[in-house]
């Protein structure tokens, strides 16, 4: 995983479809993009109040705000699609 800036942003890993571990077998290499990082600066009044009232950090999550599908040729020479696999954009939700 890429050691990047602290704030919630898009990260990427290069790996084969097989290594996704979803059971698909294909030696095609893809970029698996995901969201990670701090969401501290995007808190709202809701988060502040939650922290004060429940004294628990129910902080915002660094999550994708849009996804993309992956289409590949499996080792069985059939084209397949994995829907909503990679993150396009990230946000603190």
């Amino acid at each position: 995983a890429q050691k990047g800036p602290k704030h919630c942003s898009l990260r990427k890993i290069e790996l084969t479809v097989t290594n996704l571990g979803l059971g698909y077998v294909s030696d095609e290499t893809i970029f698996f993009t995901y969201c990670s990082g701090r969401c501290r600066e995007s808190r709202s009044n809701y988060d502040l109040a939650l922290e004060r009232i429940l004294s628990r950090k129910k902080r915002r999550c660094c999550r994708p705000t849009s996804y993309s599908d992956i289409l590949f040729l499996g080792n069985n020479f059939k084209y397949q699609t994995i829907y909503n696999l990679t993150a396009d954009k990230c946000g603190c939700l």
Partner: protein
Amino acid sequence: HYEYSERIYIGQPAGTPVVQIHSMRETESEWPHFYLCWRASRPPLYASWFHMNETTGLLSLTKTLEWNDFATVGFKMCSILRPDCHMWPSVSITVTLENATLPPCGQMKPERLCFPLREVAPHITENRLAGALHQLRRLSLSDVSVPFAVNNATSELMVTGPVDREEREVYHMQIICTVDTGDTEHKLFLPMHVNIYDEDDSAPYIPFSDTENVVVEFSRMQGTVFGNVLVYDRDTTPVYPKHLIQNKLLGTIVTNDTWVKDTFTVAHSFREEKAIFGNVRGTVHEFKLILNKNLSVSEKRSFQIDYLVKDTTYTGPNGTVMLHFNVTVLPVPIHFTNVTYFFTVSRRASTYAQVGQVCVDNCLKFEGIEVEYQLVPLDRNASADLQSCYAAVVVTQSLRAASGRLYLNDSDVLQRPECQELQFTLVAQEQQQQLQAKTLLVIVFEGEASKPVDSRILSCAEKKGRAECETYQGLGTATGLCQWRQGSEKGISVNYSTCSPDLRTCPDRFCDAVERKDRTICPQDCARVPIIGGHETGSMYGIKAGHGTCYCVPDRCFCEPEDIKVAICNDVC
């Protein structure tokens, strides 16, 4: 609008007088004639039960009232208006038909016998002829010092001669009624207030001076108000309804100097007062001189403005008064009187650090006068390198005054040893007449430059604590380091804790001309982003008050107490 009201009962015979209407005469030759008119276009069922004597104004019954009369009419109140009826002065008469016979005299409360249902408050106009204004039931009034009397024969309350409202607006009298019911004698006292209507019979007059001396100097902006001349009028001035305004004073500037007419106007306002007119309502009129346009700084004149005021609804003599404004317009020199500017700047300062303020004589008093400032390097033939040093400092226009603010425009210059001292000619130019003033301005760089830590200098306001604040070289820092302000009050306070580039100018609840160049210099004064946590926004933007520590990131600001030990959020919530 006067209302008569009376009660009638079942069994009262035809001919019973119900209500006596009074109408006061305007002139000797006038004699009132009384007619009944109905609110709706067609007389109601009960119209035929009443007769109005055309000359005496006495309304009486024409039939004896039976029980079914009550049933047929029911409770409906209908109002009929005959076409010509509303062409004449009219009063409304409400007759209440009681569902009962007349109670015997002994059972009737003395008050009922003596006085009508409603509080009695007749209104008569001043300066009118004597005459009856109200029917006091079989009342008699012996002569009293007030201008009222009772005609013992007819029990009519009379006014005995013209009354003057400006002397007295209301007469508080008391009716004393003695009721002899055979075995007991009741004496009853009832207050009666006769109000006097006003008409425009008083001329306007000037209580103090008719002249005001006006000096126009630094305030030369359109709309500026000078002076105030008072005119009194003992008459009232109704503000409603607009088209019936009485006692209106109109004024005109008496001059054929077109410059004066174009440049000045006189504003008139009025208010009702009582105490100063002997506890009778009168009107105080105010006349103020107003600049119609911006005056140039070089204008220099002395003249007198005469203003003729006329009472448009007063027909008597001396209905006009003349006011005078002695006006002196002084020129405003654009000048630096023996002033040279000398500023020092730390070499550690960062871009947008504020260096100081420049101002021609009296510039802080200027209104409607625009002055722009320029820095011109003194040594025009300096080498290119040296010339580039001069780019370090720039001057910009203040927003609230005709002064200039100097700030550091390029902190990299501070790194260059050759840039030691900058000598400028400071040029101030008035924008309308292009008048100029010049003086010397020297800036000396002092101290050692600090190595730039981070190419991207961020806002001091991002720092949440004293330690990280006072070690950070944020935008706009004069000393090279941000300054921490520690608040102490609980709750939402104007003295919130925060990290600032320069506590002299930020936060001061004013987004000044330099801070406005980049809102991250002082978001506390200039932020237009959401503010999270307990806060109060400034009148336009920024943080007026905050809870605990206020700090800002690019897209929002936070105000929260420092006591929350906030763990850095790991990737997983």
